[in-house]
């Protein structure tokens, strides 16, 4: 492998570097760039190679680089990350370097951070119920092991606390804790520190790997940070048999970094200036989750993104929603009412819920109870809107019962608080208790025998 150095740099613009007169350079190859007067090299990769001209995308900022004197060395391999089991309990920066004053890592393997697509034939369908201890998730939008389920949030909403609560409380029937791989992408120092402290307090730090890229760190570095996190997760899950929970925050910053590079390359933009390949690019991250045949480990992914102006149709949440298996939506309305965790039950969705519920997983009544709660809550909310326009006096008894139900549902079922960890049985029982506020005739989705078995005796249907 020739590792010649080149000094003919014809342009430096944004994160891009053009190197001329190169020979034998390959697409996607890693490039080591030495800037005069600096000890540590900066890295980049080949984005476009035409004959003797290579366009290099830098992972580190290009500030302070000079066209003269800067040397580019083509490494003949793609960007790799050294991984080992000792990464657990450690903190790395966004470029994958040790950032906790601990000893350097002795890698067991060096892996390409882009990974390879999982063969759909080799996948196994995720169907192990994860108990998050949060009723609005466990009962209404069930999470399963190997699922990718993002949190859609907005500016000023407590998505970090929700994600931390999930990470703290998540457990599965066959026991065993999740190993947590956590990556921050351009968030504030406080938010990164919040997570670190949460993990520490929950005693989860020694089973966590943290990659920290804050808002102060280089933007382009953010493009490789999630890939490093996922490479680590794949190693821990598929080589070491661990159940891994990956949390990436905030994906909106990642997409903006991608947009920056795309703009620098003068590509034809898609919606809102994001590159046309944003969907494909995001899928190469989100699809690195799941279960595969013959491996005991799994990867569950919870990316967090903030929707600009709470707009679900913005390209970032939109394209994410098309790839992931549902979404948890953080509700501004509930948060303002003081409900925690403020999960928008109706707007959220878990596409894999049906695989995770029922006899042997949660409880036989789960599915119909969930349907009924959804239907009754939807009716309750419609009644609430009606009451705003027409006044409560115009409501009949059934309407009033639904209104009462919707309010109680939000307060008791959804609003359980930050530190209450409910078993799924408890959550389901609360659901039944709330249904007893409603007249029997309006319970169309639950069968009579289930009502008999689970509905608490105190009901107000006689008076209805």
């Amino acid at each position: 492998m020739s590792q010649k150095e080149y000094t003919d740099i014809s342009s430096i613009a944004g994160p891009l570097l053009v190197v001329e007169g190169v020979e034998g350079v390959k697409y996607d190859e890693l490039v080591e760039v030495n800037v005069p007067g600096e000890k540590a090299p900066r890295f980049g990769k080949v984005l476009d190679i035409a004959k003797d001209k290579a366009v290099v995308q830098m992972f580190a900022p290009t500030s302070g680089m000079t066209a003269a004197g800067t040397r580019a060395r083509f490494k003949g391999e793609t960007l790799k990350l050294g991984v080992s089991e000792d990464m657990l309990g450690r903190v790395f920066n966004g470029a994958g370097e040790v950032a906790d004053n601990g000893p350097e890592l002795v890698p067991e393997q060096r892996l390409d951070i882009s990974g390879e697509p999982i063969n759909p034939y080799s996948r196994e369908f995720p169907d192990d119920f994860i108990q998050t201890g949060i009723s609005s998730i466990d009962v209404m939008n069930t999470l399963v092991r190997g699922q990718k389920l993002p949190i859609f949030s907005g500016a000023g909403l407590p998505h970090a606390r929700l994600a931390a609560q999930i990470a703290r409380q998540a457990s599965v029937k066959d026991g065993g804790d999740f190993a947590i791989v956590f990556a921050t992408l351009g968030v504030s120092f406080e938010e990164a520190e919040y997570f670190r402290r949460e993990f520490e307090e929950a005693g989860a730090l020694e089973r966590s790997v943290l990659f920290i890229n804050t808002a102060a760190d280089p933007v382009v570095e953010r493009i490789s940070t999630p890939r490093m996190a996922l490479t680590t997760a794949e190693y821990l899950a598929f080589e070491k048999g661990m159940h891994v929970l990956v949390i990436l925050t905030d994906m909106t910053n990642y997409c903006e970094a991608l947009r920056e590079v795309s703009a620098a390359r003068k590509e034809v933009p898609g919606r809102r200036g994001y590159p046309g390949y944003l969907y494909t690019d995001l899928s190469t991250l989100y699809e690195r989750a799941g279960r595969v045949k013959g491996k005991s480990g799994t990867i569950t992914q919870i990316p967090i993104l903030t929707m600009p102006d709470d707009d679900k149709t913005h390209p970032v949440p939109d394209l994410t929603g098309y790839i992931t298996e549902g979404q948890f939506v953080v509700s501004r309305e509930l948060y303002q009412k003081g409900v925690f965790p403020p999960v928008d039950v109706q707007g959220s969705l878990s596409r894999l819920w049906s695989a995770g519920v029922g006899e042997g997983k949660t409880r036989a009544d789960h599915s119909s109870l969930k349907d009924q709660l959804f239907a009754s809550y939807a009716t309750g909310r419609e009644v609430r809107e009606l009451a705003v326009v027409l006044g409560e006096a115009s409501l009949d008894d059934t309407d009033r019962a639904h209104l009462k139900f919707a309010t109680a549902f939000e307060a008791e079922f959804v609003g359980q608080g930050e530190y209450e960890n409910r078993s799924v049985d408890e959550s389901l029982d609360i659901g039944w208790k709330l249904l007893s506020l409603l007249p029997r005739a309006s319970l169309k989705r639950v069968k009579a025998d289930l009502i008999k078995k689970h509905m608490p005796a105190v009901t107000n249907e006689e008076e209805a």
Partner: protein
Amino acid sequence: MTNSQETTQAQTNTDVATGVIERVTGPLVRVSGMAEAKLYEVVKVSEEKLLGEIIELHGDVAAIQVYEETAGIGPGDVVYRTGRTMSVALAPGLLESIYDGVQRPLHKIEAAAGNCFIKRGIEAEAIDMLKMWKFTPVVKVGDTVVAGDVLGEVQETSVIVHKIMVPPTEGGTVVSIESGEFKVTDTIATLKRADDTVASVEMLQYWPIRQPRPKAKKIFPNEPLRTGGRSIDTFFPIAKGGAGCIPGPFGAGKTVTQQGIAKYCDAEIIVYIGCGERGNEMTEVLSEFPHLIDPNTGEPLMKRTILIANTSNMPVAAREASVYTGITIAEYYRDMGYNVALMADSTSRWAEAMREISGRLEEMPGEEGYPAYLSSRTAEFYERAGMVKTLGSEGRTGSLTVIGAVSPPGGDLSEPVSQATLRVTKTFWSLDSDLAYKKHFPSINWLTSYSLYAPNFEEFWAREIAPDFSEVRKIALTLLEKESSLLEIVRLVGMESLSNSDKLVLKVAGMIREDFLFQNAFDADDAYTPLANQYSLLKSLVTFYELGKDVVTKEEFDFKTFAEIPTIAEFQAIKGNLKATPEDYQSYQERISTDISALA
């Protein structure tokens, strides 16, 4: 026009190294030294032999889209030509397969890679070349056959007989044909052509994916594809041989709807293309279909299914090819005289793949960066659907129904892919995020969806189901429309201000929505309702309205008493009774009549 002789011969061609790479940008590679190459020729890139296809030629420079990851490829690497255009292998053994976008069986990729990841440069035969199939001739020596005629049959799976046809460009007198056990590459018959040359016919044939397979003629589709979905079959049906689209924002249930159709529709062959979608969705189909029983044959669904899985993270160029791979296989079974249904989920990802390649080719972009040829490519694709008289002297009738999912960004249908698709499809299932938000599934909006095929089916419905089918359907649709305008009024002034006849409309329309249109895809009993039962259920609901409207308008009538009649509460029970006979429905409708006349 490619003739089969050329294609077969080309398959055996040894690869010739001719080109040298000039430039690599993502999945697009420019290669010089390709003066003799032809458009859409398959090439192998670099010593790793990555599969690619020529998509543009300028002098001796070819633009090649590579169907695999191009990391590590660079200028100076060689490119091998194969001499053949991008084709699919057609032979017994297609059914029950799961392929990637360029027809490589995923299980063979797994075996070759040795782990769960897709390694590149893996060559895998689409068809098992060693498997022996029992071939039974249906023609004899001395018979004269033309293109498309059936030479013999192979029992491919327990439900499907694979017909071995004379290739579209062959014909002549049968010189030899034998029954027995053969590999797909064995000669099963020889024909003497009109010019006295001899053609040997194998079970294995190839066909270029971008070229529609020939047919004698297209015929007008006038029979509905029955899917068991109440909202689809009764209100917005699609024809066997029709083209339909399902646009909708994420979470609105596109995939569940498509999978529902794939599971229960009365086509004999299903081709399901997962084009740039989730890996787990394909896994779900793979783990579910072998266990689900086809209501039409009583056999596992997998026996009639072919899956093409090119998930979102698999190479983007192969995604572009996947829809063509799928539709060519589908046409091949159509030519045998089968009703084939093809689902493409999602055609937006296909269009995005086109956009990505187009961008790298530095073409002048059209709307939203999509290439200017987006709408013509889309139209060409959907036009491959149809009910046809096939080639051959007997002229079999076959159909290919194409149902494409569209994923409009933000659910906004004004974007180019949705618009290009709407122009060429005749059934439009409009998935509605508000309905999905309220968990009303399938979230097919009954006010905005349409089927231009419905008028063609009136005769079919009257003949096969009931003389008043169309009438019942129209009344129900009218009720739903009236309901939506009445609900506007209710929102403003409340329920009390409505007249009794309006209240009746709301009551019955509400039942149509909640008890008829709402259908639980996860409940095995509810997910499939035979067309005759759909009619009976809807007829019962319409009966409430038809008989009720005279009663409730009587003076001093208290509408509450109508809402409390027992037959309304009974509806759930009769709907849940899968064994209910037409007589049961008859007697139920009579009881409705009794209940209502008791009110008068």
